[in-house]
């Protein structure tokens, strides 16, 4: 299964990645190569997972790397559009607690 990563630079500080396919041990390096160099200088990075069917632990490790790099430079990482399977993985690993995702932000807003 292939992975495509589309980069949309909204402006200097805001970048969106539209990812589609499966993020696994074979495809995760592609995401890492695009994502990590951008995780500096306090950028807000949004990753749209609407067309991602599956993420494995290697995929999660790329996001953790990005999360840590963003944290060190005062940036933000926003994850959105995750399907039920992805949300379950984030819930089990408890990564949902530290990584912003749009659904969570919206829920908090409602409260």
């Amino acid at each position, binding site marked *: 299964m292939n992975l495509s990563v589309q980069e949309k630079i909204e402006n200097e500080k805001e970048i969106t990645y539209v990812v589609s396919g499966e993020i696994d041990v074979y495809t995760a390096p592609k995401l890492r190569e695009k994502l990590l160099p951008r995780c500096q200088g306090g950028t807000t990075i949004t990753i749209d997972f609407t067309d991602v069917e599956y993420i*494995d*632990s290697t995929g999660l*490790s790329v996001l953790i790397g990005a999360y840590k790099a963003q944290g060190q430079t005062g940036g933000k990482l926003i994850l959105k559009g995750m399907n039920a399977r992805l949300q379950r993985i984030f819930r*089990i690993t*408890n990564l949902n607690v*530290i990584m912003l995702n749009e659904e969570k932000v919206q829920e908090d807003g409602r409260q």
Partner: protein
Amino acid sequence: MDIHLKKLYEKLLASYMTEPKEDHLYSAQQLSKWFIEKRVSPEEVINVHIGSVKRMVPELPREVKATLEMLLEVMVGYGVAYQEREQLMSRQRELEDEIEVAAGLQQTLLPEATPSLPGVDIGVISVASKQMSGDYYNFVDHGMQQLGVGIADIVGKGIPAALCMSMIKYTMDRLDAKSLSPGEILRDLNTIVERNVLPSMFITMIYGVYDSLNHQFRYATAGHEPGLIYSAREDCFTSLETKGMVLGVLRDNEYPEYVADLEPNDAIILFTDGVTEARVDGKFIERETIKSMIRDHIHLPAQQAVEAIHQKLYEMTNYIMRDDQTILMIKRVG
């Protein structure tokens, strides 16, 4: 080239030139296998060919001679590529040998035998999808008939995962696990992993202590795939709680503890995500399917049960293991 091979080639060529037959071509194929075996380079074969042709056809037209020289020149590049390939093959064999040694060493990180505990039957199976595994399990004697059980999945595969596994193993050996509760053990492991691994590396783990005096399982999890508790009386499963961050991401982290009470014939089944993310006909296996596989084998002794469950899963996934699989069962004997 070996003089014997050279003569053989010339003889074959001569016969074919005189009266071409299908058999000659078959023999040529066999001969090429010998060339490869003897590591004869492509340009060397061409060179021998040119020499033979010149001897057998002294009046070879100048134009044909020129074409053969051209061919020889072109094949020199192939010869270099062939040698490089040979070197790569030999390097690969060396690496494979090294990995084999490392895989053997990795096996020594796992417990040699499954411990025995009064009134409890324990079984475990851990199978790597490739040579090196990212799954780890361990047993710790907490004294007073209490047994600690840890099961972990290290992100990624291969050598980096195996190196990280050795860190977990030696950290656990150094911790005075006996005096620590599951939550404290995970907290200590997290601190060490967070300090010592690459920023993107993490580990999921569940650690529990089975108290065989009152058949209570006290556990804490670090982002690990939730295990199951089988209730024999109700013939149903409940999932273990999973409220704890994966190891290696946040420096200070607390791991809440939970308790499960086991009645006779109840069982705790722990596994790694290689089990829950196995694919049957391209689709992820349903958690209900895993439960029914466990139910089908729960009557067996624990070791036989985990082996049978793994085998069944292996069959269902058409003998394709995408990830390492570990299944551990603790059963209260009736």
